[in-house]
């Protein structure tokens, strides 16, 4: 057990007492984060399941609903989120190389991108509010164009299910974004304080993993919500 003794004597303040060495601590954190992301997949999975079933049942309404969401803003938002993923990835790299100022700048950029995304999302929600597409008593989807290949009209009730799922899915995604931005504010502060070094940057790495996961959820939400049916209307 001499190995661990040495490690205990040499470890920095960031090594917690119950780990043998920093590598064990880092591996544990990484596995923990990945397991957490697995639970997140199942968390969103419940909604994806609901989405799949209702899309199968009410395809026309889903297609009409999808067309009523602004594709331009959706695409821009996807790009914004991809940019934020890049800055996070570069941020982890900066932490690995011990570039403190670069790390802080990249984290700040990530926060800016995250807030941009949320701002655009809020704008889109506001538009939907104006259009009475929020589920509830004032819901009204009679303005939606019916799909060209179907002579069936839009069933208001079924359309409301699409929007229920739209708001639930984008809402919970946005909540994850808000949590992520809050987390990065802390990480930026500690990065500024110089807490992270090439030897210890686990929090940055874990924060990055979380952020990338939120990005991936959006990568799926984008085609599932915005691109159900964008074929030219005949």
């Amino acid at each position, binding site marked *: 057990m001499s190995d661990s003794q040495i490690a205990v004597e040499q470890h920095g303040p960031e090594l917690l007492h119950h780990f043998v060495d920093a590598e064990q601590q*880092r591996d544990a954190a990484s596995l923990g984060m990945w397991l957490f992301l*697995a639970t997140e*997949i199942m968390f969103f999975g419940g909604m994806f399941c609901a989405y799949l079933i209702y899309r199968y049942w009410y395809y026309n309404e889903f297609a009409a609903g999808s067309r009523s969401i602004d594709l331009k803003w959706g695409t821009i938002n996807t790009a914004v989120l991809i940019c934020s*993923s890049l800055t996070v990835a*570069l941020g982890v790299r900066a932490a690995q190389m011990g570039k403190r100022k670069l790390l802080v700048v990249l984290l700040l950029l990530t926060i800016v991108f995250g807030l941009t995304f949320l701002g655009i999302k809020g704008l889109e929600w506001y538009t939907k509010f104006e259009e009475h597409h929020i589920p509830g008593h004032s819901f009204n989807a009679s303005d939606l164009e019916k799909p060209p290949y179907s002579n069936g009209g839009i069933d208001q009730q079924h359309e409301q299910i699409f929007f229920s799922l739209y708001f639930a899915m984008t809402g919970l995604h946005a909540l994850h974004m808000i949590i992520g931005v809050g987390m990065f504010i802390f990480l930026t502060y500690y990065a500024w304080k110089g807490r992270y070094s090439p030897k210890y940057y686990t929090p940055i790495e874990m924060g990055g993993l979380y952020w990338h996961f939120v990005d991936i959820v959006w990568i799926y939400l984008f085609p599932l919500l915005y691109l159900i049916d964008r074929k030219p209307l005949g």
Partner: protein
Amino acid sequence: MSEHILSSKLYYAIWIMLLVLTVVTALVARVDLGPFNTIVALVIATFKALLVVLFFMHVKYTSEKLTKMVIVAAVFWLLLLLALSMADYTTRLLS
């Protein structure tokens, strides 16, 4: 202990690919491919997700098999939920 540090060029390359794919998926959706629209959209999304997982999340470079196992298990369980639920919904009209 420190992980393999990837070159920033790789990150930029992935970033460009992701942006291009985003534009491509939005454009392809405007072309009428019949049922393939959905399939193409999901294939592109999965490819994008894989890029993020493998490069941004470093899964390609980790020596740890466990990470891959966790991802595979989670995706498998998600498919289980979807497939077995749909087993009910798709066969309801038959009975």
